[in-house]
């Protein structure tokens, strides 16, 4: 009896732990494989660069030429670190991942390129290009939006799309809003994908749907605001307010004051506040420790009286 219950020896304990460790690892690996099973690697080869075509699902619209040259220099120095990924297409190969490396090698005048040939279907190709690209820091919202649009139909629910892309659901809707923009806006975006961020894409889509938006009359103002963004004269967060302003100014011309007034209040030679006045607002800022309630109230009353007078005036 007692031998049946003998304590495991040190060796037995180690043996059993090693066995468990091994099983845990194999299980994890097979889980990961399953997750990635859309794609199975076939082989690696050196391919004729002329036989290779870009991935139609490639979300990146603009390739920064300088960055490509930089990469080319690196490849020239160190060789191609990582083969590109392709799959067999009609009479050649289509890139799944590595379009920048491909462009860099072309730039260097290489005639062959090292590639891993995958046996991937369309869906997997789209996904690989996306997952290769979607988190790259320099990809614009518009490009990510296009990429998400390309694969959106593969998912039954937005939650699945959200999980796959690692974006929140509300972000997914913002990205997808790019697709609902009119063609003339998309045209601008194709030339300059960073013109509109995903927030503005969504805001613009709703703006265009507003009842008093009339494209034939208002389009020029939207374009003017785009130009200002491109000239860095307008930050993206103010895009929609600016468009509204431009439209209002055009329909309702008023005295334009470019003068920005900005003055300081001082007490005993020390700054205690300021007064500024531009096209948007008037700001009075004062350190409240220095101001009695009475003075504060009289400032309020003065402004309120001035507004009351305007109100009375507009009735006539």
């Amino acid at each position, binding site marked *: 009896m007692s031998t049946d219950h003998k304590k495991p020896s040190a060796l037995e304990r180690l043996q059993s*732990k090693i066995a468990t460790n091994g099983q845990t690892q194999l*299980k*994890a*690996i097979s889980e990961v494989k399953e997750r990635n099973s859309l794609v199975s690697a076939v082989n690696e080869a050196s391919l004729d660069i002329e036989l290779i075509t870009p991935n139609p699902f490639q979300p990146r619209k603009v390739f920064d030429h300088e960055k490509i040259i930089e990469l080319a220099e690196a490849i020239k120095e160190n060789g191609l*670190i990582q083969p590109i990924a392709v799959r067999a297409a009609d009479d050649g190969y289509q890139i799944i991942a590595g379009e920048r490396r491909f462009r860099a090698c072309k730039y260097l005048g290489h005639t062959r390129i090292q590639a891993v040939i995958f046996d991937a279907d369309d869906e997997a190709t789209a996904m690989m290009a996306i997952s290769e690209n979607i988190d790259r820091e320099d990809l614009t919202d518009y490009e990510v939006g296009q990429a998400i649009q390309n694969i959106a139909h593969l998912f039954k629910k937005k939650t699945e799309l959200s999980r796959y892309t690692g974006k929140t659901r509300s972000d997914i809707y913002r990205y997808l809003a790019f697709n609902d923009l009119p063609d003339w806006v998309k045209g601008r975006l194709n030339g300059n994908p960073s013109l509109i961020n995903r927030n503005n894409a969504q805001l613009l889509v709703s703006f265009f749907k507003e009842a008093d938006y009339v494209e034939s009359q208002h389009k020029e103002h939207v374009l003017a605001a785009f130009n200002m963004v491109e000239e860095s004269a307008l930050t993206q967060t103010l895009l929609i307010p600016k468009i509204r302003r431009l439209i209002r100014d055009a329909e309702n011309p008023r005295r334009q004051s470019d003068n920005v007034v900005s003055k300081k209040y001082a007490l005993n030679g020390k700054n205690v506040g300021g007064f500024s006045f531009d096209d948007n607002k008037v700001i009075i800022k004062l350190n409240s420790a220095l101001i009695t309630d009475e003075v504060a109230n009289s400032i309020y009353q003065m402004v309120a009286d001035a507004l009351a007078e305007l109100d009375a005036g507009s009735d006539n």
Partner: protein
Amino acid sequence: MQASQDNAYLCPIIAVYNQKGGVGKTTTVVNLAAEFGRKGCAVLVIDVDPQANASTHIGAIDPNLYEKNAIALFCDKKTRTDIAHLGALISQDVNDGFENVCYIPSTDQLDIVVTETLRIHSNRPLEELKARLTLLRDAFDVILIDCPPALSLLTGNAISAATHFMIPIDTSSDYSRTGWVNLMTYIKDKTPETNPDLVYLGALLTRHSESINVQKAIAQSFDELEMEMDLFPGVGKRLPVYIHTSTKVGEASVLREPIRKTARSNKVTKDYNDLADYLLETLSIQQSLKA
């Protein structure tokens, strides 16, 4: 009143590095982490070795299964500024014996992904890790980085991010020494730009025996080398504590526990305890423990 002073504590970040493989880097990180944790420190282990040995040893989950891992410490723009995103990378599922220890797991893809991404997309490819770890310095008492055995972009990042580094040296052969000279030259050349305040803690002799002539001789050669190269005005040269050899180290790795749990009265257990005490003292880590 003392609370505001405690807030000012920025913990040391210790990189354990040697481009020679198998010298005891991971063993040191894992057991030091356990000792620090046992003494009440909040410890964070960053695994930047694609072999993921430290992750496997400390973590209760296979590193393959983590959705978030050290890749995001280098490539995800959000973790640069957003502490919430950064915090999401930290795992607390640790094996028994690692109290107070958290870690950020590695993955076998780490090297490929980081090298490819940073080379193209980063203006300061050697300082990505630093930008992230800086955000975590007031949240832990000590941060340990386990490095891969290579002079790669990953280790370059670890060396820029660290406030201190130590170099485990396996004295059983002469190979560590050649590596050490190259390495110190590299660090001396590189860090003045990226990390001028880096402090060299010293060489940590591992699997060392003072009673074996060759080991004793190699150990002494380090003292001379360090003097000759006059490298860093660090706290120490050769660390005052060295690590003995024990078969229990291997056993502990199988059992996925600190050596203290496998063999409480083992020499190596005591060595890592002493090393932790020495570092607590030298780096004033204990100050934060008084709170």
